[in-house]
């Protein structure tokens, strides 16, 4: 393994300036006696094992139990975690993190750079077979892909620990946003000794050794899990909440009822209920932007002939009144979308695209013209196709409203087809559809997490859109210090070609008791840390 010498290159050092990032309790606030926080999740999370977690609920818990190199603050900016700062080499191929020396595991063992090396190697080990090994691949760590494929030993991974407080990472391609990716659960350290002692049982309460602000106290699968303050945590004195309880409540309406009964402090808002609840509880109902988009895929590979005509695609995109979908159907503070990347994405300026500037009346008129030009609709060939979605109340509502709009405005006849989730994934992945629902939530807070999807090689390009210029621009963006102009051009190509119809960008809707303060409302990834929260006296 060749290690790049980063000393010869000019050093670009990033020092994180945020000093304190624990619970920030303002003066004069009376804290509640009982510092507890109980929140509700929809279903059981996949695991406590940071390298195996594959869902957001699991990640939320992992961020409390473990601490990675960096954390996020309430706006989503990175702030020191176990790492104090890092240096990136000029070519952005080597990242050197300096770790704090006072971090400890819950059993008192110091947290060292070696714990990260172990964890990262573990994440790509074929024997562990973590589905999230792809995340390590996405991080472009040297030899990651080869290790996953079983061609190299895990020790060949481009990560090393020259000493206990230095972690050196070598990348196979320069990623300007690499530092943002180390807030993800897959990159959290793992306690080698505990894993070797207990094997698969190491995540059970009592066995689990963690380095975050909390330790696991109790876990009843599908019912509750409880975590309590970790006395060994380096910043323990600034942690306010004593216990955090996760309750699994599989029904949104029941979650709300139990929130009303005071049994949980936080729950999701059932679909469509935000306006009523915001009216009833103005200080406790929240709708905030979230890093996800929602769109319709045209099947450009094997779909109807009509979809090959860009005018048909444009017409269908224009006839959809996104304001109605967002304000009158979903009603949860979502954002009408005309670009693929959500406006909330960090460092992303929404480019000007024509369709966004028009009024809906203009769009409707233009849609009719385009469809007629293409020879379909009134006076032309009748246009009909099937729209595929997975069975779900909200998806169904969007589908019904969209098809009614097309029917009434353009005379297009759309048949709905719902399928069970996994069947839907198979069908869509095999391009057995005319038009299909698509949605994506960012893996990290940067536009490429969205725009990469529409490159030719992407595994999630269900539209089978292929544009050489887009591929080239996205490849360039990987190493560009200012990728915004590249992203703008990609978005403009997408708006012109319309391989997918962006419908809306998500928002997070939640009910949060006003006794709980410190929630990172402005963090578009909604990555929250219980150590930043506190409960005030009623």
């Amino acid at each position: 393994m060749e290690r790049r010498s980063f000393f010869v290159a000019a050093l670009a050092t990033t020092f994180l300036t945020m000093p304190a990032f624990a619970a920030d309790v303002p003066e004069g606030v009376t804290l509640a006696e009982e510092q507890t926080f109980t929140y509700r999740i929809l279903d059981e999370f996949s695991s406590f094992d940071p390298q195996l977690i594959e869902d957001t609920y699991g990640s939320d818990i992992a961020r409390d139990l473990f601490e990675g190199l960096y954390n996020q603050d309430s706006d989503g900016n990175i702030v020191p975690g176990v790492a104090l700062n890092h240096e990136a080499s000029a070519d952005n191929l080597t990242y050197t993190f300096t770790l704090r020396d006072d971090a400890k595991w819950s059993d008192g063992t110091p947290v060292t750079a070696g714990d990260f090396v172990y964890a990262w190697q573990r994440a790509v080990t074929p024997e562990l077979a973590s589905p999230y090994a792809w995340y390590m691949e996405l991080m472009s760590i040297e030899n990651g892909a080869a290790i996953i494929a079983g061609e190299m030993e895990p020790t060949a991974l481009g990560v090393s620990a020259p000493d206990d407080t230095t972690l050196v990472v070598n990348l196979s391609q320069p990623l300007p946003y690499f530092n943002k990716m180390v807030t993800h659960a897959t990159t959290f350290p793992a306690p080698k000794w505990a894993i070797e002692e207990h094997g698969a049982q190491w995540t059970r309460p009592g066995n689990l050794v963690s380095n975050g602000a909390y330790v696991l106290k109790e876990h009843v699968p599908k019912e509750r899990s409880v975590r309590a303050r970790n006395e060994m945590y380096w910043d323990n004195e600034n942690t306010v909440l004593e216990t955090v309880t996760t309750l699994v409540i599989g029904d949104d309406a029941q979650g709300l009822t139990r929130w009303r009964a005071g049994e949980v402090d936080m729950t999701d808002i059932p679909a469509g209920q935000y306006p009523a609840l915001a009216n009833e509880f103005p200080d406790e109902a929240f709708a905030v932007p979230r890093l996800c988009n929602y769109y319709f895929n045209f099947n450009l590979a094997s779909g109807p002939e009509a979809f090959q005509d860009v005018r048909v695609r444009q017409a269908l995109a224009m006839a959809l009144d996104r304001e109605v979908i967002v304000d009158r159907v979903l009603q949860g503070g979502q954002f009408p979308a005309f670009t693929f990347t959500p406006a909330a994405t960090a460092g992303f300026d929404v480019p000007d695209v024509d369709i966004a500037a028009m009024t809906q009346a203009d769009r409707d008129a233009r849609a009719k013209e385009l469809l007629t030009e293409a020879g379909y609709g009134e006076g032309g060939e009748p246009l009909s196709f099937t729209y595929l979605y997975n069975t779900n109340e909200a998806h169904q509502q969007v589908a019904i409203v969209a098809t009614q709009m097309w029917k009434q405005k353009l005379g297009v006849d759309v048949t709905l087809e719902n399928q069970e989730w996994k069947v839907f994934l198979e069908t869509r992945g095999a391009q057995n559809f005319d038009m299909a629902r698509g949605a994506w939530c960012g893996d990290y807070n940067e536009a490429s997490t969205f725009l990469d999807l529409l490159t030719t090689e992407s595994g999630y390009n269900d539209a089978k859109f292929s544009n050489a210029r887009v591929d080239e621009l996205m490849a360039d963006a990987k190493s560009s210090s200012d990728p915004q102009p590249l992203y703008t051009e990609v978005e403009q190509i997408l708006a012109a070609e319309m391989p997918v119809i962006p419908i809306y960008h998500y928002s997070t809707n939640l009910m949060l008791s006003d006794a709980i303060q410190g929630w990172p409302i402005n963090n578009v990834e909604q990555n929250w840390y219980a150590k930043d929260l506190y409960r005030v006296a009623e």
Partner: protein
Amino acid sequence: MILSAARRRLQSRAFAEEQAPEMVASRSFWADAGQRFMRNRMAIFSVGMLGLLILFSIFGNLFSRWSFEEIDWNVLGRIKEDGGPSLENGHWFGVDELGRDLYARVVQGTRTSLLVGFIAGPVSVLLGATLGALSGYYGGRFDRTVLGAYTIWLAIPYIIFFVVWQAFFGRSMSQMIMVIILVNWTAGLLIVRGQVMMLKNREFVDAARMLGMSDTKIIFRHLAPNVLWVVVIYTSLVIPEVIMMESLVSFLGVGIQEPNTSIGALLSQGASTMTFGTLWQLGFPAAIFVIAQVSLFYIGDGLRDALDPKER
């Protein structure tokens, strides 16, 4: 000695003739049953209600100002405030969460559900009852095989079964009815089997055997009337179950497809928003379901009483 005397008595011709009135279903049995049923006022009333329901599902659309799939853009987004039942805007039953006319949807859904319920329900029970009767009557290896199949079938993950069915045969109304029958063929099996196990050792069956009747004849002529009550009651229990099962099957992509709907689908949609102040979305489909179910109850009981061979 006493034993052999008893046996002799059992084998005597006189005994067989004495038992005959009980075993031979008299010619006038069905006529009597009909008369008895007609005397049951609740049952007759229920038949009337069910008839009205069927008429509603067929001709209800004539009184509707909206189609079942049209969105009323004026109320969309203000369902809670403006979406309730109203004479002015023609939404007699109010609108659903998407501003579609609930009256038209209830009419359409009633049609679907009655069709599914009244075909799949009775057919399933008849299948189960027949197998149960044979199983109970013959016993032995046949019985054990049927019980084995029964056990296996109950344990099969039925969601997977629906998903596989959808993958291979696609979606349609008849597919759905077939799938529901296939999943429910065990309905009533055990209970009929148990009744037959008890009845087959009764004197009148022994007598029938002695008179040289075939097994088939014994089962269908003499045992069946005695277990009809179970079949009737069971059917009236299974029909509502089937109507609810339809919404799951459709959910998994085998059955009907939006914008078409069913009472089961409307009920679960209504129930999911019942705590949010749009109770009419639950109320009207529930009312239809209740009428159907209550009617079935009384018709079932009426039939049971009428078909009871001992009430002559």
